[in-house]
Structure formats: C-alpha cells, structure tokens
C-alpha cells in the first residue's frame, strides 16, 4: 500500500501524482477516488495535469480522454487503456495499491 496524501488535502476536482515507477495519478472526481497510470498511453504527458470532467480525464497535450473507472481511452489519439489501481482511505489517509502488470485493463 502506497500512502498518497490526506483525503482532506485532495478536494473534489483535484489530482495528485505519486512518483512510483511508473508514476500513478490519483483523482478525486465527483466524490470518488480513482487511481490510474499517470502517463498518457499516447505519448508522454502526465494525466495528473489533465482536465477532469465527470469520470473522464482529458490529456493536457493532445486531448485524448480516459475513463477513470476503467482506464479505457475514450477518444483519439490514445488507443490503449491506462491501468487502474485500487484506492482506499484509512484514518483520513489515501492509499493506492500498485496493480501488478497482469492486472491491466486491456
């Protein structure tokens, strides 16, 4: 389990990048927490810098969008999904579990 930050420090609409290898982006969207691989599958932009709209995050470089719930790329230029990772909150602290390579949402 990787500690992310305090829930209170990640208000709705915000995101944070954690420097795992590869890095993970954690989002607080519409009252839900989501964690996905931070690097856009199109090129090399950080999705934590992306634009959050509902359950979608738009990449800040060429506007590919990903569904935070499944990691699926919902529009070009990205074609591959990003991995999703389980998120939990304990005692007001957000934790991410780094999903194993096999657990990718294809």
């Amino acid at each position, binding site marked *: 389990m990787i500690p992310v930050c305090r829930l209170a420090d990640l208000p709705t609409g915000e995101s944070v990048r954690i420097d795992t290898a590869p890095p993970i982006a954690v989002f607080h969207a519409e009252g839900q927490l989501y964690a996905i691989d931070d690097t856009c599958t199109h*090129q*090399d*932009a*950080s999705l934590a*810098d*992306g*634009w959050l709209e509902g359950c979608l995050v*738009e990449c*800040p*470089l*060429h*506007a590919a969008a990903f569904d935070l719930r499944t990691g699926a790329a919902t529009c*070009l*230029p990205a*074609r591959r999904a990003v991995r999703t990772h389980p998120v939990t909150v304990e005692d007001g602290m957000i934790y991410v579990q780094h999903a194993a390579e096999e657990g990718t949402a294809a």
Partner: protein
Amino acid sequence: MKSVAVIGASLAGLYAARALRAEGFDGRLVIVGDESHRPYDRPPLSKDLLTGTTSPDRLALADAEEIAELDAEWLLGTEATGLDTGGRTVLLDGGRTLATDGVVIATGAAPRRLPGPAPAGAHTLRTLDDAQALRADLTRGPVRVVVIGGGFIGAEVASSCATLGHHVTVVEAAPLPLVPQLGDTMATICAALHADHGVTLLTGTGVARLHSEGAGNRVTGVELADGRLLPAEVVVTGIGVRPRTAWLEGSGLPLDDGVRCDAGCVTPLPQVVAVGDVARVDGIRAEHWTSATEQAATAAHNLLAGRTVTTHRSLPYFWSDQYGVRIQFAGRRLPGDTPRILEGSPDDRSFLACYEREGRTTAVLALNRPRPFMGQRRALARAAQPATT
C-alpha cells in the same frame, strides 16, 4: 459517393480516412502516399526519436487492427503527380491513374532548402527517413552541429543534439527567433533556453553557403553572410516549409501558399477537400498537429454532404518540447497584443501568460504549466466560438 481517394498518407490523411468511415462512408477508399511507411507521427522525430528515447515502431498512428477496420486500399511508395478534376482522375507516378468520385488532398508540406546540392552531413527534418539519417550522423560520437533556423523545429533539434552531448550552435537570420509566433517578450524568454543548456544562439545573420570537402563531399562548416565560418560536421536546416501543391498545378484548383479552401476545408470543387499543412483554410494555413486532425473531421463531413455544412473554427493550438520545457500556445495572437504573466515566473522557466488586446485575452502561452494552460485554453475556446459549428 462511391469512391474516395486520400492523397497523402500521414496525419491529416489518416484522420480524414477515419472520419469518412466513422461517418458511414462504405465505398472504395484508396490512400496514396509517396513514403513507404504507414502513417506515423512526426512531432517525436525532432524529440524522442532523435534522442533515442523512442523507436520508429512506436510512432505508428494506427495499429494493425485499426488498419484492418479502415478497409482501405493503400498505395504506398506511390506519388500522385496530377489531378484531372474534370475527369475525376488522380494521376500516379509510373503512368497509372486512379478514377474517383471524391478527393481528400492531404499532401502536407516539405522543408525549404538552402540553394544548391546538400553535402553529406547536411540535413532537413520532415520524414522518418530524414530523422533516421540525422540520428545516424549523431550517434558516431560528439560532433559540432550547426542548426540553421531558430524556429520550433530548429530549437527542438538543437535541444535534442545538446542532450546527446554535441556542441550546438543555432543560427537565426532574424534579430530574435519565434517573434512572429510569440512576440518579443515571450520570444526572448524562449530563446534564453538555448543559453541555459550551453547552446550558442547567433542571431541577425543569414547563411551564405555550406562548406564541404573530401571524396564523400562531407560538410565541414557553415559560412555566414557576415563572413564568419562555423566549423561543423553536421548541419540541420530548419527554415520553414512549403505546402506540397506542385502536383496540383494545372488542376484548376486555387493554389497560393496552399490549396485554398473555405472554412469547411472545401475547395471550389465540392468533391475535393484539403486538410492539414497543405490546406489554406479560410485564408489561414496552419502547420500544427491539432489543426490537421480537427480539419480532417470537418472535411470528411462536408465531402460526404457534397457541400460545406460545417466549418472548422477551433482555436489554434500547438506545443513544443525543448530542453525539458514543454511550451504550449493557443489562440490567435496579433502583433501588439500584450503578454501578462498570470502565474509562475520566466526565471523558473515555468509560467502561464496570456496575451491581451483591449482587455480581451487573445492567446495563452505556458512553459511547463500544462494544467492551468488547459483551463485557459478551454476558456479561450469557449469565448471564441459561442455559436454552434
């Protein structure tokens, strides 16, 4: 419309083909491209491909599955040499012809070159083959590189060469590079990135000629217009591009700095549309990745409709990566618009600035500030087009 020929098998051509299929076109789709490669992405050529952090196979714009879904006939390694608009025929090299009901012109642009033949070691950068040839010259050990032209491509090449450990000089004819795009203040800040990384920027002087010697006629230096000689083993010329319209001469289509078309990417002939770097859409020719992709959707829609039913009115946007700094720009800046820093600082090479004219924001520029940039870009896009398109 039973058949469509897309001429140019790159970004705009592929996106147009995709859009045609997405709009339900189920006729014959032929894609003609003079390069031997399937569509690949150009922006990484001057960045990650040159530095070796990505490989050619990772630049493909469509994977095998998508190529299959597209159900197109690919004529690669084939150059279109003419368009007979009356006969609805595309002429191909080798004397072949292609009869078609609709044509998408997506032939892009080619680099401007210095006059005279290019000696070995002198490069331009547009295609994957260009990039691989340049990279081959850069991986034989440290060399002196002179980059002619300080625009975005020149700056990216300089940055990549510096990353690889080469000794780099950029020569720019204007007093300052990037002024037409960014204006004086912001151009000064971006030009300073070169010095930050040990790259010399020489401005206000043109190039007289290249020196070369030996049996292989290899480049040895660049002679400047003021007489100075810069020794160099590798020279890269990045002095802009010209739209590839030569093959359309005699077709009757209006060609002046690109294929002239209306705001819907439609030429005076409703069955011929133009997209990407080759298209001059409503008086403006853009040379950016995002315009190429967005125009393709508009053009495909109008081609199938048989007339302009939708127009391309999105906000211009481009990015550039140099020296670890991501530069992003959106909007329509006019000379005289005043830049104002909204957050961050030029000293940190990380800031967000907007250009203003009479109290209105006309454009936005960011260095390493992607998230707030996106917010500004969206706001600008909303303000620019309240009407539906």
